[in-house]
């Protein structure tokens, strides 16, 4: 069974919905048939007038009443029989009163038409046609009302004015019975068909109710889901804002701390120099003066580096990919890294490597950071080697490796090295590798690291094929 019915109260809900749909349908049918019969009434009026003018004189030839009377009957009596049901349909469509009113008038119309044709047997079939039309209502009591009217009419007129009904002044005694039996037979058939139609309507209403409830239930679920999604999204956004704020706070604290140390040294040096400058004659012999000037320069550079790293990290400049030969770029980056004694820095990027698409500035910074880290990874006082290699490119992914044979990265540190603000250096903002990772990502690439304590580390940049990007 459908899940709708399984829910508590769903059965009542279904019944209620089904009966509402059934009533709606029934009302539609009644109004439609009302309109149909109203048109029929108007048509019958015109037919009746035509009959009175053209046929009645022959039908009643040699009988008591003249043609003038029939025309009046057709116009006025027929007018009344049409106007009353049309008015009912117009003012009270779909009501019980209208249906039975229409039925009464329709059967009276049959009587009038029978009368106008002088009781010809053909027009008696009009009764059967009327009953069939009324059966369109799918409301069997209407048929009983109509049949009742026909039987009463036949009985009364058959007794008082048999010519008007049977076309003869002395009809057989069983004629009324015969007509009634035929009518009863048709009524029986029509009542059965009405009941069938109603049963079908009920079944249809029930199915529609099931379908509607199911779809409403789905709709509700969808809405609830949408609502939940919206809430989730706003919660996520809130969380991201909070995290961002926390990150900004952390960043501010970290950078603030990193700036304070060099600034303190500069301030001390400045205080010393100020005092010394007050007595210039003693300056010449003071070795501290040039030493402190150099120190101030170094520490201020350090401040500037920290600030530019911070800005680099904060700036979300989009990558501008241009063809950029890798080997010269690596050469350039190596030139930017301060050389260290006993540490060899080798550029092993092949000359013939296909020219990749890179953001020159951003990728150069990536290389500088990685090479610098590699150089610093080699313990002081021992020889070491830093190598940059590359392979692939063109239609294949480009792989760039920066390798060192330094101290390696301890296993507990390794998972955190790309985290912003994480640093093991004494002087460092912890932004360098975070910047590298972000920039490689912006190039559509990935950054991986392999390290063995004591053996060295390898940073691997993988960039998607240049052809795929150009496409």
């Amino acid at each position, binding site marked *: 069974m459908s899940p709708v019915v399984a829910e508590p109260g769903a059965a009542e809900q279904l019944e209620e919905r089904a009966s509402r749909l059934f009533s709606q349908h029934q009302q539609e049918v009644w109004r439609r048939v009302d309109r149909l019969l109203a048109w029929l009434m108007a048509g019958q009026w015109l037919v009746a007038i035509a009959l009175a003018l053209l046929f009645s004189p022959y039908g009643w030839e040699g009988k008591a009443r003249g043609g003038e009377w029939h025309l009046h009957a057709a116009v006025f009596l027929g007018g009344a029989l049409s106007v009353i049901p049309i008015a009912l349909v117009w003012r009270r469509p779909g009501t019980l009163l209208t249906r039975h009113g229409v039925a009464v008038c329709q059967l009276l119309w049959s009587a009038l038409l029978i009368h106008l044709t002088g009781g010809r047997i053909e027009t008696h079939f009009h009764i059967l046609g009327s009953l069939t039309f009324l059966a369109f209502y799918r409301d069997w009591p209407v048929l009983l009302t109509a049949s009742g009217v026909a039987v009463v009419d036949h009985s009364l007129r058959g007794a008082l004015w048999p010519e008007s009904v049977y076309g003869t002044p002395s009809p057989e005694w069983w004629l009324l019975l015969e007509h009634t039996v035929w009518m009863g037979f048709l009524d029986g058939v029509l009542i059965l068909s009405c009941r069938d139609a109603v049963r079908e309507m009920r079944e249809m209403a029930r199915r529609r109710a099931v379908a509607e409830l199911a779809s409403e239930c789905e709709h509700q679920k969808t809405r609830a889901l949408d609502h939940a999604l919206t809430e989730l999204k706003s919660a996520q956004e809130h969380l991201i804002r909070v995290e961002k704020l926390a990150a900004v706070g952390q960043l501010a604290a970290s950078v603030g701390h990193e700036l304070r140390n060099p600034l303190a040294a500069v301030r001390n040096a400045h205080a*010393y120099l100020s005092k010394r400058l007050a007595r210039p004659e003693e300056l010449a012999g003071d070795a501290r003066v040039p030493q402190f000037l150099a120190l101030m320069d170094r520490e201020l550079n350090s401040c500037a580096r920290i600030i530019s790293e911070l800005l680099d990290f904060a700036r979300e400049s989009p990558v501008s990919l241009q063809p950029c030969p890798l080997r010269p770029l690596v050469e350039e980056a190596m030139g930017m890294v301060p050389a260290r004694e006993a540490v060899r820095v080798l550029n092993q990027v092949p000359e013939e490597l296909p020219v990749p698409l890179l953001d020159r500035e951003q990728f150069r910074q990536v290389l500088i950071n990685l090479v610098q880290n590699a150089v610093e990874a080699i313990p002081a006082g021992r020889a070491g080697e830093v190598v940059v290699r590359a392979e692939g490119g063109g239609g294949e992914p480009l792989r760039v490796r920066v390798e060192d044979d330094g101290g390696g990265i301890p296993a507990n540190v390794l998972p955190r090295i790309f985290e912003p603000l994480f640093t093991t250096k004494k002087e460092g903002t912890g932004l360098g590798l975070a910047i590298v990772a972000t920039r490689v990502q912006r190039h559509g690439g990935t950054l991986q690291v392999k390290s063995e304590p004591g053996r060295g580390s390898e940073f691997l940049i993988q960039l998607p094929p240049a052809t795929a990007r150009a496409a």
Partner: protein
Amino acid sequence: MSAARVLVVDDEESMRITLAANLELEGHEVVEAASGEEALRKVRERPVDVVLADIRMPGLHGVELHRHLRREQPGLPVVLMTAFAQESLVEDALAEGVFTVMHKPFDVAHLLRTLRHAASVPEVLVVDDSEDVAEATVEGLRLCGVRAQAVYDGDMALERMGSGKIDVCVVDLVMPGVTGPQVVERLRGAGQPVAIIAVSGHDVPEMMRQVAALGDVACMRKPISIRELAQVIARTRGRALARS
């Protein structure tokens, strides 16, 4: 006191040598140490008058160094430096009898004044009409590593101030005879730089306003925790000396 022997402890060479240069220019004798361990060795070799140490150092950090020095050389004034804006270590250090904590980058003149003051080994004067309270406070401060002495009325307080050893005065506001505000006013009038910490057991907003109007007065409500009092004293020393 004019020239002192100062031990400068910082793992950052730039900081150490610039501090040393400034101190030497003022005529102080400077001993440098690049770590807490080295500092302990140097102090054991030859005593110093005052220690200036960074808090964040690899190995033995500044606060640990201070704890060692308190055991080995009680009474040796220690001034700590930090680049951190907030740190629980700073709070601990302040509560454990460090003379004060300086925040980098500081003014060199301020540092020189602070060191000179620390080297003079000043004391805290606790003024309270209840002898028990006064003595308990002094004992608590001593346990925290803060030198202190107690007096029980305003006249004795003024007399003690004459010794020139007092730099901070913890005054109970509500006292019979000479009241707290009057004591503060007279202490200020004596012409000696002294920082005031006003303490009151009752809610006396009028008196609080009165002493606050005298300027540079920290206020505390009883019951005061000795830890907090020690922290306030250390902070006051770092601040008040910047002014005088």
